[in-house]
């Protein structure tokens, strides 16, 4: 039984090898197409999976305020009004801001943990040391 299949493989290979160039080129093109498509699919799938795993504990809803097309701080007093909406379990502020670095001429976005944030004095000393370096 196995020998019969092997004869079939021998015959198929011999037929393919009669036109080495054409069949070799076809094999190369098919390999490249599968390689390219599989790379894109695998890479995008990996990114989506990694994002889903890493962002599992991301907030379900984020409230943000825009003013003239720019993001603007939300008053803390809005939190109590939002907490009264039916279905809202918890409201936590989110601390972030921009810091302009005049050495690199770039804006940095800083995210600060809500629990145990740096004190205003520490922030002021950071500002002072930053301006002293400039």
């Amino acid at each position, binding site marked *: 039984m196995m020998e019969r299949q092997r*004869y079939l493989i021998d015959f198929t290979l011999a037929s393919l090898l009669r036109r080495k160039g054409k069949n070799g080129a076809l094999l190369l093109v098919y390999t490249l197409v599968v390689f390219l498509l599989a790379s894109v699919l695998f890479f995008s799938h990996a990114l989506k999976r*990694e994002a889903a795993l*890493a*962002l599992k*504990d991301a907030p379900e809803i984020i409230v943000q305020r825009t003013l*003239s097309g720019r993001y603007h701080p939300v008053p803390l007093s809005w939190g109590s009004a939002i907490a009264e909406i039916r279905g809202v379990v918890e409201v*936590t502020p989110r601390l972030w801001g921009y810091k302009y670095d005049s050495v690199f001429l770039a804006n940095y976005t800083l*995210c*600060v943990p809500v629990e145990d944030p740096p004190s205003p004095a520490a922030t002021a000393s950071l500002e002072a040391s930053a301006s002293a370096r400039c």
Partner: protein
Amino acid sequence: MRASTLYLALTSALACGMAGFALHASLEVAGAAAPLARKSALVRQLSLTDLCLFTEASYTRHPSMTDLATPFQDSPMSLEHFPSGALLQPPGHLGREESAP
């Protein structure tokens, strides 16, 4: 040597290679648990929203938090001038028609 012997040997070697890739991937998954837990803790602590695939503009850094106006904030008729804006599509919820319940 018969061509079928070569063919079967090559196919078997490639199948072994593929099994090796699968084995390597399953071992890497076990090893990636600790870095993933660190990333997850960072997301929880800082309330992060997206994978930061591009750093240029706020709407490409955090696509889930953007709106339709921000890319054209300089002027409604201005061209959007960040290259990553051409690579990243607006999030799906901005393009969908709102249907009344």
